Each structure stands twice: as structure tokens, then as C-alpha cells.
């Protein structure tokens, strides 16, 4: 596989011995226009990688924050096609920041796997995280995506034992997303030493960078986690800021973009201290 934006980003960060801040927002939350503004601002606020959620009605691995964020986006009319359009617009003035789409398989399946891979690639997407496609279902999307030059980022979890890790890592590329807790997004916060041990375990099986997510809410936590990994992923804490900034009708307010980017900056500063 050719070098991708993800490979380049981690390489560059590695050279300066810094860690990656991976920022998650749902595409279209709270509306497509505001969401694109947030997305545009994230790199300046310190995000090294943008993880863009593909909204889905039934996000089974997500906690209340990201469920709500997904619902807001759907209510505002976001679709998978709209998500790809957002990426395309983002790419008109940013050709550097990697974009990873994260979501569930059904919208992709309905879009059509071949058409999706083609359109995602063309829009400027770098990688995919599909929560409900474990290695057992690799033929669905993982293999065609890899063949097309898209990174397929796999989740490794505390339940992925040493016997299973090689299978999970086999077709992973870009980075490994280590899920720091058994649970849904935005719930319990992970403990630094437990994560340190887990990252070391994953790294015994792969040379890929390992980013850690699920449950990181503050700059301090981001710093602690990033200090024992190659990057930290934050989602729920960011979309909570979006939720809190909304006006009484649930629409975006003048603070939505600024507050969200301010939070991103705090988290990024935490990661950079690591």
C-alpha cells in the first residue's frame, strides 16, 4: 500500500517525538454548515487527525453523547452522501490533515461498497473505522478498501486477547485504535497504567502507531493517555460542547464553533504536553 496522509502524519509526529490528537465530530452536527466550519477549524485548533462520524440511527457502540450528536446530524438532513460532500469541501483548502470516517456498516452497504470506496477516495478520505465489521467480515469492505488504497483502522479492545490480536491486526493499516475500556464511547475513563500495559501488549504484535480512545474527557486525561500511546482520540467531550452551545431550539448559536474549537485546543494542548 502507498504512503497515505495517515502514514505521513504519524511519521512527522514521530520525528518530533509528539503525539497525535485525533478529534471526533459527527458529520452534520448540529447542521451541515456549522459542522463544516468546525471541521475547517480543527487542524488550527491542534487536531492532527479528524475522525468524522457517519451518522447512523442505531449506533450500538456509542454512549448518549455520540448518539445525540448522530441524531442531531440526521435531523439536520445529513446523509452518507452529504458526509462525503463535507470531506470534498474540506479538501478544497486542506490537503494535509488525514480524515478517517467512522461509523456503522449499514449506510455504507446501502450506498454500495464499490461506489462508496470510489467516492470516498475521490472526496479525500484516508481511512475507515467501521465498528461492526470485525475481521470475520473482512470480505465485506476491509479487503476492497485496502485494495483501493484506503486505510482500514481496526479497533482492538481489552477483550482482544493475545491469541486474537494477530488476526485483528493482520489487515489493519494507518494506525490501531485501542479501545481503552470495555464499554461504549464516552463512559468510564481509562486508567493510565492499565492503558500503558495494553498499548505495550498491542505493540508486541505490530509496528503501527496505537491511538487510544473511549472515555477521554479532559486535557489532563488526554495528556496522561497520550503519554503512554501514539495518540489520543476524543469524541464525546467535543460533541458535548456542541450540545451545550445550542440555542433553545436546538440550533447552532454564535458560540457553537468557537466553543467547540476552544475545547479542541485545550485537548490538543494536553496531548502536546505528553
Amino acid at each position: 500500500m502507498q504512503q497515505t496522509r495517515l502514514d505521513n502524519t504519524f511519521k512527522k509526529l514521530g520525528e518530533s517525538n509528539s503525539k497525535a490528537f485525533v478529534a471526533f465530530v459527527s458529520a452534520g452536527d448540529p447542521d451541515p454548515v456549522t459542522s463544516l466550519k468546525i471541521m475547517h477549524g480543527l487542524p488550527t485548533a491542534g487536531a492532527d487527525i479528524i475522525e468524522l462520524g457517519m451518522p447512523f440511527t442505531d449506533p450500538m457502540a456509542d454512549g448518549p453523547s455520540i448518539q445525540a450528536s448522530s441524531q442531531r446530524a440526521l435531523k439536520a438532513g445529513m446523509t452518507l452522501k452529504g458526509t462525503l460532500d463535507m470531506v470534498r469541501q474540506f479538501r478544497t483548502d486542506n490537503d494535509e490533515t488525514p480524515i478517517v470516517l467512522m461509523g456503522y456498516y449499514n449506510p455504507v452497504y446501502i450506498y454500495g461498497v464499490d461506489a462508496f470506496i470510489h467516492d470516498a477516495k475521490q472526496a479525500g478520505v484516508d481511512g475507515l473505522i467501521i465498528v461492526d465489521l470485525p475481521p470475520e467480515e473482512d470480505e465485506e469492505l476491509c479487503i476492497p478498501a485496502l485494495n483501493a488504497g484506503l486505510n482500514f483502522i481496526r479497533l482492538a479492545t481489552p477483550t482482544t486477547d493475545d491469541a486474537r490480536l494477530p488476526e485483528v491486526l493482520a489487515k489493519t493499516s494507518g494506525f490501531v485504535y485501542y479501545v481503552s475500556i470495555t464499554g461504549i464511547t464516552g463512559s468510564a475513563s481509562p486508567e493510565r497504567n492499565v492503558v500503558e500495559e495494553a498499548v505495550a501488549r498491542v505493540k508486541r504484535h505490530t509496528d503501527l502507531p496505537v491511538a487510544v480512545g473511549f472515555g477521554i474527557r479532559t486535557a489532563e486525561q488526554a495528556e496522561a493517555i497520550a503519554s503512554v500511546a501514539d495518540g489520543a482520540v476524543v469524541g464525546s467531550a467535543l460533541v458535548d460542547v456542541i450540545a451545550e452551545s445550542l440555542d433553545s431550539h436546538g440550533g447552532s448559536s454564535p458560540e457553537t464553533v468557537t466553543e467547540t474549537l476552544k475545547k479542541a485546543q485545550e485537548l490538543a494542548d494536553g496531548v502536546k504536553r505528553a
Partner: protein
Amino acid sequence: MSKANSYTTGPDENGRFGIFGGRFVAETLMPLILDLEKAYGAARQDPAFLDQLQDLQTHYVGRPSPLYFAERLTEHYGGAKIYLKRDELNHTGSHKINNCLGQILLAKRMGKRRIIAETGAGQHGVAVATVAARFGLPCTVFMGATDIERQKPNVFRMKLLGAEIMPVTSGAGTLKDAMNEALRDWVTNVDSTFYIIGTVAGPHPYPAMVRDFQSIIGQETKQQMLEREGRLPDTLCACIGGGSNAMGLFYPFLDDESVDIIGVEAGGHGIDTPEHAASLAGGKPGVLHGNRTYLLQDDDGQITEGHSISAGLDYPGIGPEHAYLKDTGRVTYVSATDQEALDAFQLCTKLEGIIPALEPSHALSHVGKIAPDLPSDHLLVMNMCGRGDKDVFSVAEHLNVDIG
């Protein structure tokens, strides 16, 4: 699709029935369902496990359930000879207990210490709460807030049985949302918890396992019909939400070519309206809750809400084996509307003295459509998979009767 040599060989080693089924779950759950598959594979070949299950089916559930000749319904329709498979007489009032017993024995065998489940109408929830009480395991049941409102008697029964009820307010607050929430709990409590799925859906091995535990319905029916009539039935008919009672009745007959098999989906206000729960008639293949199957969804792959008068049928998906049986043409799938089910509910109550649940009332309404045109020696079996005690309040409401 070419004709299969046998319809009973599925699923394959990847949990597929044709293109349907599979294991579409988050990595956190993947090791668990592989463990479950292994444990179930061993249990089903262990005579001690099977003996214990059979003993409980006999003495705790009251099996075999009767195959009852419905003389007055037969007379009323003036055609086929109508038999009712009386699974509503089971302990807890529906077929759901057949599966729950099997799964709780498996949970014990796997050393699990806590049970979770989703429920729609509450029949599965009651059955889970019952076996959890019987085996002394704490139990949490996820139930949509809308369903809690329309199934109050079952909610109270579950509480009496010691279960904790977790109301689910996401989405429309019905079965689909309850299943999402149960999966979220499972992913959080992987070590301690066994998830008793109530229907023939979810990731492999659930669809096959639940089918196997429910197949006792069809096995008994076959034997009882041979004893009574000296031959196989001509037609089988059962209602379908996720499809566990239907799968249980159909499975042992799938390779008996002479037997016509009909599944009846919930037509809600009509399958030409957006308000129904007929996934096969109105949906298309997609991936949800761990398996590929027919789903009610929009053009963007977003899942839409099912609607049915029956809380047990308003699921936007259907078991993957039904999806396969539809595409192969082995089983015919039709639908019945809310009103048709309500009419059948009242008819059965008045003619047979049996108050059916609203779920099998859908199947009965279809029986009413086909029976009059069939000859008097045509043997038709309908699965009376649940009793209607839980539904009397909501039926009263639909009939504009105030019973306080």
C-alpha cells in the same frame, strides 16, 4: 437462487444463511460470541445438558403443548381443518420460555453471573425474568419506554419476578431501541453477563441457537399430527416479528416438500403505508444488530421504525433465516393489518374460548383468509404462540372500552 438439497443445513461456519446472518458486531463482543458458539456447540451434544433441558420443559414449562383441533373456527370458516399448536399454555404464557430455558442453562454452564435481555411486548422479558428467578441470577431487562406504557401487566410481572426494568427512551422507545441498549450494556459488562436474545436474530450463533431451542414446537407438532391424523399437516401458519415462534414451528418441516409454510408479518396500517412492521414485504437487505437481513430503512441506510398494534412484532428487522427462506421461496410471507388482527383476536376469543395474544392474532387472521377455500381434509396448523392476557388493556383501548 437454485433450489437447495436441504433447507436445514444452515448456517455455514460463518453464520450465514445464504447471504444473510453473519457476525456484524464490535470487536469487544467478538471474542464473547465466539466463546458462546463454542459453548453452545459443546452443550448441544452433551446428554446431561439435554436431559436437564428436557426435564425442565416437561415439569416446569408443561410440554408437550397440546395440538388442539379448533372445531368452531373450522366450522366458522367452513374449509380446512384448523389445528392450534397451544404454546400459549406454556408456563409464562408464550413460546418464549422454550428458548430462555436453553439459554439460561448455557449461561450457568459458562459461569456467567448476570442476565440481560431486551423485550418488546414483554413476553420474552417475563420468560427471562422467570428463568433468572428459577436459577437465582440477577436480571436486567431493557424495554422501550413506549412499550412499558402499553404492556403494563408484563412490566409488573417482571418486577415481581425480581428483574430490574431499564426503560429505553432513545429512538421510538420500542424493541429496536431496547436491543441497542442491551448490546451497549453487554459491551460494558462482558465478563459477567450473558445476553439472552429473544428471537432468531442477532449475531451468529444466536439465530441458529434460538431456532434450535424453539424447534421443539415443530417437532411436537409433527409427532402429534402423525398420531392424530396419520400424516403430515398440509399448511403451517405463524406470525413473525423477529420470527422465533415461526422458525420453531417451520424448521422441522422445511424439507417436507408437501407442507406449505406461511409466515405472517405485521402489516400495521397496511404495507402500502409507512406504518407497518413487515420487513420482508417492505424492507431490503441491510445490516443491523449483528446480522444481515431484510430491514425497514430509508435510501440512506437509516433504520426506520416499525409500527404494529402488537409490541412484539414492531421490529424493523427479521431473523436472517427467514430472509433466506423468503429468497429461496421455501416459505411464503404475507402480512395482516392491525385491524385484521384485532378482528381475529375477538373471533378466536368468542368461538374457541381462547384469548390469543395480538401476535398470533395476525396469523389467525391469515388463516381466516385461506381456510374457507381449502378442502375439509386440508390440515392447517397455526401456532398459538402466546396468550392475550397482556393485551386486554390495549385491546380495550382500541375498541374504545373503558375498563379503568
